[in-house]
């Protein structure tokens, strides 16, 4: 576990609204899970407007990452522990 900056990640979308981010996650994921706001990933509470969707594709996590001055990004992160955590604790959704 650690900071996003220390992980292998790509950016799928940037400067999006949270709604747009949710749609990008849905269309790019093979598995989707709903989690509550404040759900911990990389030891940090996830920021988001419910329903908060985390996707998984090719064993990577796809989720929204919001910064106060830069809006919402959609990131694809190689985080095997996070993938297990989401599968174990998220609610599968279509």
């Amino acid at each position, binding site marked *: 576990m650690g900071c996003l900056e220390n992980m292998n990640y790509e950016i799928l979308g940037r400067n999006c609204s949270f709604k747009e981010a949710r749609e990008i996650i849905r269309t790019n994921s093979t598995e989707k899970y709903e989690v509550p*706001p*404040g759900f*911990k990933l990389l030891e940090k509470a996830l*920021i988001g*407007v419910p329903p908060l969707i985390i996707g998984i594709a090719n064993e990577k996590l796809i989720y929204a990452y919001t910064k*106060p*001055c830069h809006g*919402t990004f959609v990131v694809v992160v190689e985080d095997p522990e996070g993938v297990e955590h989401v599968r174990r604790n998220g609610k599968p959704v279509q």
Partner: protein
Amino acid sequence: MGDVLILIGCPQIPVQSPLVLYIADFLQDAGHRPIVAANPSAKQLIKTSDPKSHYVSAYKDLDKAIGELADGTIQYPLIISLIHNDAGLTYTATTSAVAPKALLISVLFGEHAYDLAEEIEYPTEKVVAPVTHNTRPLLTKLDEVIEWAVLKI
């Protein structure tokens, strides 16, 4: 009298910092401790305006403050969130979800204030005016709502 959390976003809209000091002053007069949760640049602007902490009692990192609320390690009876963009709305919706017992006031300003206010789906009292440089249109409603809130907590 307890701590009250003031959540603030990106400091790009000029009315934000004076609103924080105005709200903090109101809370101090009512016997509360204003705690500001901000990112580093927004925090620096407030600290520069209030170097001796006459208004703001303490600061917290924004993400850390939300993390503490999510963990349940800290609670506030009243949270006042200043919002002028989608990210601010996202942070405030998160706060509402992780601190459902807090009385939440959303203060919306900036050119998209009305559009943002319409998107709100969490329980909150809204104070809205599409201002960027002039705080006056917000103040009467803000006074009313904060006065009501401090009596309620």
